[in-house]
Every structure is written in C-alpha cells, then in structure tokens.
C-alpha cells in the first residue's frame, strides 16, 4: 500500500537506506545528486545479494527458458527473471512482458532503437535543442551514416525545435518540426538539466501527430519513470528508455520498452550469444523480442534488484507521494535561493518550482564560484551535488557560451528520502559562499 501523498514523511523511509546512516566528521551525508543516480534501500541491496548468495548462475531463460538447461539454481533465477520483467512491463503499462528489453541504461536502450530502425536517406528525426547526449549522439551517428550513404554531407536528417525562453517545452514549435518526412520523434520526457517536463496531454498530441505521418515516438523517460506514473499505451509511446539506477535500483540496469510490432521491426544492434535461436556457418536465426536484443550473459543480480526497486518505489512509497514530496522540496529550496540570485548566480529553467520537478540548477559566469559552492557543500556539510554540463552540452553551448563557458553549472536534484532540513543546509552553504565569493574560492585545484 503506497504512502499518502499529503502526509508523506521522509523519515518513514530514511531508515531503509544504509548509506544515509553513515557519518563523516560526525555529520550524515546529504545526497542531492538523484538525477544521476539514487541511493538504494535495504530491500534492493538484499535482493541483489540474494542472487549472489543463493542462485548465482547464468540465466538466459528470458520468458520461456529457451536455450539453457533448467537446474536448481537456474530454476530459481528463472522465476526471478520472469517476475522482474513482468513488474517492469506493469510499471510502464506495457501490453506484455515481451515488450521489455533489459539494457545497461537508458543510453543503451536509445542506441538499440537508433541503430535498429534502419532509416533511409530522406527520413528525418526530430528532437528538441536540449536532448541529453544519450538521445542526441546516437541520432548524430545515424545522421552521419545516412549522409555517407547518400553522398550528401548536407543531407537533412535531424531537425530540432526550440524551447520557450525559460526552457519550458513548447508544443507549437515541436509540432511545427514534424513533417511528412519525419520517421522518428525522439524526445526527452523531462530534462535532467532543469527538470522541465512535457505534460501528458502534450505528449499524446505529439504521439498522434508523429503517428499520422507514419513515424514513431521514442521517449527518453530516464527522468520521469522514477518519479511518476508513466503509461506507454495511454501516451502513445512506441519506444521508451529508462534507467533503473535512477529509481533505487542496481547500477547499470536499464530497460527499453518497445511496442510489439515496433520492437519486432528493429534490427538487432548488439548480437551474439543468447540473441539467437540457432546458427549455421552461413546464417543465423534470431530469437523473437526481447531475446534478440539481450546479447550475452546478463545482469541477473540487476534483474532481481529491479523487481525489489519497483516494489519499493511504486508499491511501498508510491508515485503520488514522491511527486508531492519533490514539489514541496523544490518549492522550499527555490524560496530559499531566489533572494540570493543575481549577477553571479542564476537559476536555469522556469522560476516556478512546480515546473522543475525535483531539479534546481544554478548557473554562473564564474566556474570558480560554482566550484566553491560545490566544495564548501561537500566539506562543510557532506552535501553531494553535481557540477558541469550534465550531458546537455549542445544546449548549454547554444545558450551560454557567451558568458565565457557553458560548463559553470551546479545541479541539485532531490528524491523522496530528502528532507527540507537538508535543503536548508545547502542553502546556508550558498548563502555563506555568496557573502564573500572570492574568499570562498580558496584551495581550488
């Protein structure tokens, strides 16, 4: 039974996270880098450990145990594999577990799609100007290949649409970019840079439009699946990529959802052991999806841990509580930091915290100032945040090279176990640094 959204108290879950009980200098950690990777609760750690302690064997059973003998350990692992895939399908609203492909992360999932779609010269891929590198670079590679095939270095393959001036999604510009040549609309559901998200209504409109021209909707949902209910069928999504390590799950565990017919049409990207039903010296017969996309021995401990993570996040905490709590946290931090912003420090994205999910990113002309805040936060109060470009290089270059560097940014990202007090500690650090910024810049590397 999920926790109530209006009365959710992070103290009710913090005891489940062993890493939060650690101390350095007598102080606990304050982990505010959840957009990158979250902490793990005890049930997930125990599930991962159970694989290694109890049935540490090779799987490969997929949905039907095809291809490997089923002994004691394999039988137990097989049950976990099936259950984990079923839960993932259920989490995303997929029609069947066979629509779920395990990957290392969302990046790998997006590569499987980009390289598997077999686009032709003349086909176009639409995305926004702020796609994460994981949803940009694979398509740049597709562009490079198609241009080479066409012998035309200027061939238009990728079309990008802009955002509103404050970074919010702009449906009108997105719709305008979709043309009869569009074969793929590949977009991020929520930005890891500033937290802005495409609403369900807008996403459905986009899906309808791209389907009307014969294209597919590829959704990079790495920043939404851990935080809210995402239903691929209701939204009209053809492919969805997400990372389990951003939702309390094991490291290097991700998933690709593909609508059955879309997945079946994909050419396998990484092939070899376990992707085939049979081989001969001159030919190969691939398994049906998802098996054909899961090459070699897999991250079985990750699958077992994924099931535990889904149960913990969705069933124990609940997405309503998560969304509501993140909103409370971001409103509070925004309220604390807004008075401190000015010439030296700005907020990326909309001022309204409700539009930024659990993300607050600060930007500066001064990398030294950003470094000082990060360093003081870590040293004074064990606060862990992230600095840099967050894989949004292209967008940041476009907008901020004029200030001397696009890399001078610091991101705070929260999850359900964070508290208002923790954010106050961080805000106090920022306040202290800004009181005498140059003095705070000592000991830079």
């Amino acid at each position, binding site marked *: 039974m999920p926790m109530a959204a209006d009365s959710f108290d992070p103290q009710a879950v913090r005891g489940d996270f062993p890493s939060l009980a650690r101390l350095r200098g007598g102080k606990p950690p304050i982990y505010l880098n959840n957009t990158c990777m979250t902490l793990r609760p005890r049930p997930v750690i125990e599930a991962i450990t159970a694989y290694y302690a109890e049935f540490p064997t090779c799987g490969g059973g997929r949905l039907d145990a095809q291809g490997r003998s089923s002994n004691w350990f394999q039988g137990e692992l097989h049950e976990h594999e099936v259950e984990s895939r079923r839960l993932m399908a259920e989490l995303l609203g997929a029609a069947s577990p066979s629509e779920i492909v395990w990957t290392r992360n969302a990046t790998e999932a997006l590569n499987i799609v980009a390289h598997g779609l077999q686009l032709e010269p003349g086909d176009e891929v639409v995305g926004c100007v702020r796609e994460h590198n994981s949803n940009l670079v694979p398509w740049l590679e597709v562009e490079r290949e198609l241009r080479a095939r066409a012998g035309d270095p200027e061939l238009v393959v990728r079309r990008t649409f802009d955002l509103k001036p404050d970074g919010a999604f702009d449906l009108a510009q997105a719709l305008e970019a979709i043309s009869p040549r569009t074969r793929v609309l590949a977009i991020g559901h929520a930005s890891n840079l500033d937290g802005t998200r495409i609403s369900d209504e807008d996403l459905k409109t986009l899906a309808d439009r791209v389907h009307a021209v014969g294209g597919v909707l590829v959704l990079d949902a790495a920043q939404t699946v851990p935080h809210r209910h995402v239903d691929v069928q209701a939204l009209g999504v053809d492919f969805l990529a997400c990372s389990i390590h951003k939702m309390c799950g094991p490291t290097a565990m991700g998933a690709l959802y593909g609508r059955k017919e879309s997945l079946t049409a994909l050419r396998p990207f990484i092939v070899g052991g376990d992707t085939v039903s049979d081989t001969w010296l001159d030919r190969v017969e691939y398994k049906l999806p998802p098996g054909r996309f899961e090459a070699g021995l897999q991250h079985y401990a990750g699958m077992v841990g994924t099931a535990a993570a889904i149960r913990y996040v969705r069933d124990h905490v609940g997405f309503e509580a998560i969304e509501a709590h993140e909103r409370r946290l971001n409103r509070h931090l925004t309220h604390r930091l807004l008075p401190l912003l000015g010439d030296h420090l700005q907020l990326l994205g909309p001022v309204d915290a409700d539009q930024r999910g659990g993300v607050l990113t600060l930007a500066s002309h001064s990398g030294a100032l950003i470094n000082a805040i990060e360093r003081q936060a870590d040293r004074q109060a064990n606060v862990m945040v992230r600095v*840099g470009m967050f894989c949004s290089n292209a967008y940041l270059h476009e907008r901020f090279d004029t200030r001397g560097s696009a890399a001078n940014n610091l991101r705070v990202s929260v999850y359900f176990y964070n508290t208002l007090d923790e954010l106050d500690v961080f805000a106090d650090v920022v306040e202290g640094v800004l009181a005498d910024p140059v003095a705070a810049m000592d000991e*830079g590397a």
Partner: protein
Amino acid sequence: MTISHAVRRHYAERIFAVGGRGEVPEAFRPLEGDATGRSTVEGCRGGGKNVLEVRVRVNDGRVEAISMGCNLCNPAMYVAADILGRWARGRAADEILALEARSEEVLDPWFEALRAPERPADAAEKFRYTLWAVQNALRDDRGLPARPTPDFDPGAPTMGADRPSEETV
C-alpha cells in the same frame, strides 16, 4: 593550493566583478568568426575540472583573435587565461610556439601584468598550462597534433630556459 594575494586581487577586480555586471572580460568572449585552431588543457592533475578551452584565429601568421573558455576553473586559471589571452592577441604565432613553457623567463611579462613581483606559484603553474594550451591551438591551426600536457608542478625544480623544445614546429 591556496590562492595567492595577486591572483585573488586580479580575479576579483578584473574578472569576477566584470562578470558580475553581466559582461564577460574580453579574453573570455566568444570568438567572432570561425576559429582556425582550438585546444583544451586540464589545468590540474586528475581532477576533471579546471579545463581551459582555447580558440584562435590566425591570419597572416599572427593571432588575429583568441577566446578562452574556463570550464569550472579556479581563479588562478581564470587569471592566467585572462592575461595570456590579452598578451597573445596580435602576436606572431611563430613567436608563441617558440616559447618554452617550463622556463622562468617566459613568465616575466605575465607576472608583470599580474603586478606580482613575488611570482606566486599558483599563477606560475597556470601560466604554463595556459601557454601550453595556446601553443596546442596554434599547432592545430597548422594541422599538427596536440602535444600531451605535462605536469607543471609548482613544487618541482625549474627545468631552465635553455631546455630544448620537445618538438620543432
């Protein structure tokens, strides 16, 4: 390394304060027009920060334009980039490429610009890294590969001005 008084003064007055007015010091403005050479240097060992990007446009053998980008740099790197950026503009590429980054004498004009006769170690180290990056950008302009960046450890003995260049460019 603690920031020296001279670096702190230069950074506060000529870089941070200017940025605080919504402008960017000249050396850090984007290059107008295309670059003919570019390079990056990581001005600290093993850090992954303090990355200086240099873009140059060489015309008729001279540095017509130069732009520095400081990615999460510390004040000393900013200061070195600011001073060398202004110093390099209009200078002959051959002259810059002939300089030996490990020599003491090469630092003279930059310490003068810093108004630091005490020659603080933090500035010396970043001057050397910045010169290395500018030289690599000029090598890029000539189609030559970048030279790997050495460690300019301020605690290490100076190699001396007479040390021959590793490569002739």
